[in-house]
């Protein structure tokens, strides 16, 4: 069990989601975060006064996959979809997991994230 955590640009949210779907990654958890790094934001203007906006909205994807092979595919897909080539494209962090449990069935380990049919 490995977790791939990607921080990407807000406007890339739909592209990344689509790219993950394309490689058959359907399970994911997404959240809104703020980030800074090399890219340091922009300067807004409120009533003529400059205002620094140095935390930018980013999207965090968390995807748990069963193997390193899946990690590679996932990272590749995300990179392709999220790339603009400009500073601020984001980072991908990879973590090891001890265990996973599917609440519905109680399945643990790989079974917990293995996907049968997708249900609407």
């Amino acid at each position, binding site marked *: 069990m490995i977790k791939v955590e990607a921080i990407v640009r807000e*406007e890339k949210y*739909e592209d990344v989601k689509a790219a993950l779907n394309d490689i058959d990654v359907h399970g994911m958890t997404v959240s809104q975060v703020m980030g800074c790094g090399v890219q340091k934001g922009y300067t807004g203007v409120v009533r003529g006064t400059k205002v620094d906006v140095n935390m930018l909205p980013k999207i965090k994807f968390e995807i748990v996959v069963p193997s390193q092979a899946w990690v590679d595919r996932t990272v590749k897909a995300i990179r392709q979809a999220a790339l603009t080539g400009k500073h601020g494209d984001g980072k991908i962090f990879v973590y090891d997991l001890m265990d996973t449990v599917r609440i519905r069935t109680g399945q643990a380990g790989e079974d917990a994230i293995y996907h049968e049919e997708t249900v609407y």
Partner: protein
Amino acid sequence: MNSGDIAFILICSALVFFMTPGLAFFYGGLERRKNVLNTMMSSLFIMGLASALWVLIGYSLSFGGNISGIIGNLKLFGLNGVGAEAGPYSETIPHLAFAMFQMMFAIITPAIITGSVAGRMNFKALFIFIALWSIIVYYPMAHMVWGTDGLLGAVLGSVDFAGGTVVHISSGVSGLVLSIILGSRQGYKQVSYRTHNIPFIILGGAILWFGWFGFNAGSALAANGLAVQAFMTTNTSAAFAMLSWMAIDFMKEGKPTVVGAVTGAVLGLVAITPAAGFVPIWAAIIIGITVSPICYFAMSVVKKRFGYDDALDAFGCHGIGGMWGALMTGVFTQTSINSVARWDGLIFGDYRLFLAQVASILITVVVAAVGTAVCAFLVKLFIPLRVTTEEEKIGLDLSQHGENAYPAFNGLD
């Protein structure tokens, strides 16, 4: 001069004024979060621009003099000579009060258009477009329908109580044409566009309904029985149209939606606008009940079939709803209610008004469509109509205005 009438028109002017920010919220709530400010601003800046133009040349071109029944002239430039005395359009209120009341219509009409092009139009191009459109489409339309010796009103004999053709058809059709010229938003059809803030839609819809009393009842230009009649037909049509949209939602999905109920109410208001001071209350019931299914069909089936991206349904609501209202005015008008109409409606056995209404609708469609194409062409000579792909992705709030509507709601402000 009658102080009751003056009081009424002044307050009605304020009410109609308030509709434009109402529209900003109605539209803003419907848009995606990243475009909400641009969507609201698209209505707001017109409160400045259209007011300024109206004072300078708009009133004069619409209601001053007459050139071939098509447009006025520039004799009243800068509202010169328009003052505290009565004018040609009403004896009981100052000429300037009439100019003011009409100004509010010249503000909201172009604002309606912007619903069609939300999410992708260059703000600077929109600014210039609206200025041109006011001159090329709106002032002629106002003159033709309401001006002395105007082509559609005085000459043809069609009637339009508070702006079915001038306001709704003209803006709805222009919105459609402009949205086609611009092209669809990125990912239109693949990605689903959800409303981002339904309470704002409710707020905007409520302000619109509230202001519409000034719009329709105020169009009697006096605090009299006709104003009361228009007030009541207005509310009745809105109420029945809301219920009829709720019924459709219920039949189709099992659940009446809030967005649908508000949309239905607005449709009822649109459809009754040309008819408000001409038809009996029972006709308002019929107009209200029928407009919702027709526009529902236009928005959900026709739009999909033809694939145009009328983003917030300016055409589906105001274009279609306005046409239906103008037609129904030709069906249900009673000269006994308002003798401004020369003939009774179809249902009372006279076809002449109905034909005049049909002609008036067609001419309005042509003027709006051609005028919009011309304006868009002119703007395009100087500035691209559409934002870049990247600007569209990032959102128009940041790319067009450098702002973020609610930074604190995922930010940490």
